[in-house]
């Protein structure tokens, strides 16, 4: 029997049946070189298995973390909103405006095992962002305008000198008194004795 060659790989992978497996094992008992090669192949396969297991664990951990942060849900909603907005604006459907959509899709698929957690978070639509932004801008503008308008107590109002004679007359009229026409010129208006 020649050296094992590909049969060694098959043995290590567990692909040989009884007769073929016995022949390879008999050969390994006689051939030092093939034994060394078999040991090397088994070591390599173990390490490859070890590498494959860590990758799956990392993916699961990443999914849990994204689910806890709600990031995947937010990104999903944002992606859907942007997709809809893109469709409305461009007349095309389902074309993401930004790379966020692709990122969100991948994050969503990675956290597919946590759909219940995502459903507990409300969807934040862009209309709310737009409304909130517009309201903030409006209030800030109104406050600035009020601050500016209220700055000077002196409004550009007309200068007014109170017509006190007219007002005194009206005040007397309110109390029930009407002045009589003067009977003749030259009569003094009032007397104010004892005024210091």
């Amino acid at each position, binding site marked *: 029997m020649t050296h094992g060659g590909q049969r060694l790989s098959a043995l290590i992978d567990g692909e040989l049946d009884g007769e073929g497996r016995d022949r390879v094992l008999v050969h390994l008992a006689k051939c030092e070189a093939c034994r060394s090669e078999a040991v090397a192949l088994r070591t390599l396969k173990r390490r490859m298995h070890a590498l494959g297991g860590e990758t799956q664990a990392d993916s699961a951990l990443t999914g849990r973390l994204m689910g806890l942060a709600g990031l995947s849900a937010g990104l999903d909603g944002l992606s859907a909103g942007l997709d809809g907005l893109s469709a409305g604006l461009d007349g095309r459907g389902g074309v993401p405006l930004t790379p966020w959509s692709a990122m969100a899709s991948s994050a969503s698929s990675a956290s597919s095992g946590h759909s219940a957690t995502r459903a507990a978070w409300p969807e934040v639509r862009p209309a709310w962002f737009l409304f909130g932004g517009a309201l903030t801008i409006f209030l800030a503008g109104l406050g600035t305008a009020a601050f500016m308008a209220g700055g000077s107590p002196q409004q550009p109002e007309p200068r007014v000198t109170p017509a006190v004679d007219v007002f005194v007359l009206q005040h007397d009229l309110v*109390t029930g008194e009407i002045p009589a026409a003067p009977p003749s010129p030259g009569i003094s208006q*009032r007397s104010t004795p*004892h005024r210091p």
Partner: protein
Amino acid sequence: MIGLLGACAVLVVLMEAPGSPGVPGKSGPVVRYRRLAPAAARPSASTPAAAVGARLMSEAAAACGSVAYRGTQIAVWWGSTGESASFLEVWHRPGGAILAQPARTAADSSDEGQPAAVVTPDQDQVMTVTAPLLALMRANYVLTYSGRDVIDGRPAQVVEVRRRSDGGLAARFWLDTATKLPLQRELFDGKSAIFSLDDFTGLRIGAGQLRGMPAADAHPWTGQLSAVGLAALRAAGWPLPRGLASGLALFQATEFQATETSIKSGKVVELSYSDGLSVISVFLQRGELPQRLPGWRRMTARGSKVYATDPDDRSLAWSSDGFVYTVISGAPNAAIDQAVLRLPHDSPAGFWDRMSRGFRRIVSWVNPFR
């Protein structure tokens, strides 16, 4: 002429009479009231005297509107600068207002050619009782019959007006027993010190006494403001308070569109406040006072900068936030103080004051009812 000379003699007696025991520091004709029973410290509106007093004042209000009369009214005023007095010839035709004309006195006769005396606003407010004022009076005071007296040879019934809050004496009326017309009135300030005395002399009753009655020289403003009109003005930014001080409720508001040159700048709104005894008139105009006000003096009393035209500070004016306020009153100084303090004044604005003023201005700009 004889009546006027008699009035002058009465005035001299008033000025030189010793002070009343109940009115320290004031001189006046209250000597003859000594025999009146001292009033209770706390009034009660349910006593027989209060019922009689309220009935007498109601009859006085009716008489003031239905009795024809003429006479001379002497008004004495104790202001911050001393005593002053005025004489008015008055006529009253049933259903109309009281026609008043400054009376010519003996002192005036001796001062022919001299300039007229200083006009002091509202010291010569005619002595009358109207239904709206009586309603306010009964709301704020207790009216109590307190005895009989004789005024100018006419039997009179005396009614005391006391504050419901503390029982302090606010006024006394002497009502003609025959006609219920007021013959004399005393007004007291918040410390029950007299500040105004009005006295009728030479009262003549009947329509036949109105011969020679002069014509009216002025007419009241006709633009009466309803509650809706007041609300519209308030919505347009006009600061129209419903009351100024305790007991001074808004009882009349008159809007006047100015047509004369002196007030051609725009609309004038007059608000009249009263507690039933005194009237405070507030005139509002859009605008601001000029830098100089000839004939006015600036004062900083009452915590704010205001202008006054008369020595007793009974005509005050200031501007604030785009409005000019003019206050004219015959009320006690303390009541005027409260009224002035309740009205807006400019002050150094903080952040929130500035924001508030700015918001008000913006609202007034966009208000379509402005």
